[in-house]
């Protein structure tokens, strides 16, 4: 009896030692060299695995960032500059601070402004609806209102406003991962820089129809009149295909375009004071008057 126990223990022990040795040698021989920095980078990532950076999760981003020669094409929108600074410190790269972004819904076709011309009775999904037809309003460019973007958001930053039928972005929760931008079949949502203290100007319309058609479909539409582009002194506004676009990099937030827009398609958000349209218009007129006077003086001199 004692013998059996001793033998058993001896055999098992020897076997264990031999196998451990084999495992050790195999592990040594076939060791996969992995950059230890990958783990370090992954540790500082937010861990949302949202795919907003363009990679399949935070681990994939870390692997790509370690391999990349610089960090110009790798940016974690969720973590923002703080996380990227940490990543850069680990990898010894330089990283330029990027302006934090936020999702902006560029459609203001509320129920009142954009009357429904037919009733959609199919499956409630913007994607399915966009495949079937141009939508239940006269505007074939705007928000379809089925909330695919809300479903795509992992951070609970989007919700549908039942009063307007449009999605609303909660800026405090939005991480600018871009999932909603991809989910929207009409490409209504855009990632724009948050702006200083959240202040930003944008054209809340994507309708490329000619003025009368756009206006007929929606009272809040951009009609491509170009008044904003003419007024802008910073060359921030371009009008292409009957649609104005404000370049956030050039915009100086003077709000002059917002004051002159005849349809109210240009929106300024998070400004401390409401826009005094008349004052801004007076300012523009004065500037124009001065410019005209200066020009008159110049022509006189030439004469």
């Amino acid at each position, binding site marked *: 009896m004692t013998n059996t126990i001793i033998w058993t223990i001896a055999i098992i022990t020897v076997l264990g030692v031999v196998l451990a040795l084999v495992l050790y040698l195999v592990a040594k021989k076939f060791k996969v060299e992995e950059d230890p920095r990958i783990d370090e980078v992954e540790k500082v990532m937010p861990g949302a695995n949202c795919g907003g950076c363009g990679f399949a999760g935070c681990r994939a981003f870390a692997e790509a960032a370690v391999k990349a020669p610089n960090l110009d094409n790798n940016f974690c929108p969720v973590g923002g500059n703080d996380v990227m600074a940490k990543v850069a410190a680990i990898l010894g790269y330089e990283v330029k601070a990027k302006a934090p972004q936020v999702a902006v819904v560029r459609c203001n076709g509320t129920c009142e402004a954009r009357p429904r*011309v*037919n*009733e959609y*009775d*199919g*499956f409630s999904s913007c*994607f*399915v609806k966009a*495949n*079937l*037809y*141009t*939508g*239940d309003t006269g505007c*074939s460019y705007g928000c379809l209102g089925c909330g695919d973007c809300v479903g795509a958001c992992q951070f609970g930053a989007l919700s549908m406003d039942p009063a307007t039928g449009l999605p609303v972005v909660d800026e405090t929760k939005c991480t600018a991962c871009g999932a909603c931008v991809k989910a929207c079949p009409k490409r209504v949502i855009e990632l724009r820089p948050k702006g200083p203290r959240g202040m930003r100007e944008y054209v809340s319309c994507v309708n490329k129809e000619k003025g009368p058609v756009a206006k007929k479909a929606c009272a809040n539409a951009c009609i491509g009149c170009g008044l904003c582009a003419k007024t802008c002194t910073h060359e921030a506004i371009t009008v292409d295909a009957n649609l104005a676009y404000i370049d956030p990099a050039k915009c100086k937030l003077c709000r002059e375009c917002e004051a002159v827009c005849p349809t109210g398609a240009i929106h300024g958000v998070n400004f401390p004071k409401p826009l005094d349209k008349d004052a801004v218009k007076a300012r523009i007129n004065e500037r124009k008057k001065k410019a005209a006077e200066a020009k008159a003086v110049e022509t006189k001199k030439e004469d």
Partner: protein
Amino acid sequence: MGKRTFSLGGVHPHDNKISRECRIEPLALAPTVYISVAQHIGAPSVPCVAPGDKVKVGQVIAQPGGFVSAFIHSSVSGTVKSVGPRADLAGRPFTHIEIAVEGDEWMEEIDRTDTLVTEIPADNKAIIEKIRLAGIVGLGGATFPTHVKLSPPPGSKCERVIINGCECEPYLTSDYRVLLEKGEQVVVGAAILKQVMGNVPCTIAIEENKPEAIAHIREVIAKLGYAGIEVMEMKMMYPQGGEKQLIDAVMRRQVGSGALPISVGAVVQNVGTALAVYEAVQKNKPLIDNTITVTGECFPKQANLLVRVGTPLRYIIDSLGGVPEEAVKVISGGPMMGRAVANLDSATLKGTGAILFLTEKQTRRAPETNCIRCGKCADACPMGLEPFLLQKLSRAKDTEALEANAAQDCIECGCCLYSCPAHIPLLDHIRVGKGFVMSAIRARAAAAKAAAEAAKK
């Protein structure tokens, strides 16, 4: 031997042919017509008229934009007002040619008399060319250019011409009225098609719910004395009018996935197409009008109208007393395969077969519940697909799996949706999934073409 039908799936919706006794009446000309250049499967046609041009009925106004494309003729006489984008029935902009109607002046070569010309010209090539020049497309709904169908690729041989008079869609009666009132012309058209395909046997397939039409066509065939044309009485079953289903029913042959009917030796043409072929070959009349059923339980003035291509839907409806109050949905086509009209100002196309009004009660969808895996959709699918699986894959946007499960073979007949006890919008999703697969297939084909061209260089 019992009446034949296809072997797989199918459903039995009530046929509701309430407009079956209404004679075909020509509709008065609309003040303006809008003729789309995308009226057929394949490349859109290229307009060859400019604003200000005077056109006559039957004059070519758009040339084919490719091999699979068709001529488009003016359906009215008058002045071209504009050539530009206009919303189709789904609201999407397509190029339309707007013509203001002035009088009704036809091209001289068109024979407008009613005399039946039974002598068929001997030159088959000339007949196909005539069909091509007449801009004839399949009028069963798919609007595939007919001359392409009649020119089988080398190596394939046609063994039977099938004239599709099933009209399995509920409500639709235009083919039935054409069979009754223009049976002679249809039979001559069938004889022409039969001759072009090499004097193969020809079957005119008609469902059993149209006994008058069956008797009438049998009489006409006996009277005209064409050999080799027979009428086959089909068992009622939807979607028997589907090309692949009809070939299965008549010839007991199955067309493979992605293959054309000619691969099993069949050429299927609709009754309306046979009539158009007759008119083009024997009367020189291009395809400028078609028979449209205007119907619905809530619609008091049922009608089968002969409508010129490009007539605005609103004009047709207003001429019959306007949209009825109880109607909440207007459908272009039948209730199973037709599409809801989002824009009543859109104009009819060559392939428009019906305008149907449905009431709230008929059309409202019940709330969707969970799939209980009963398999009714798979039983009903005439293509042998698994709709419950396809809709799941479509929601997951899994293109590879969709293709492996043959989503591209879906004929969008709606049998799955019709039979689903959980009211799952199966077809909505499968249609989207089919779109994924088709674009993947197209992308592959384009890549292969580009690679082949690069290899050549």
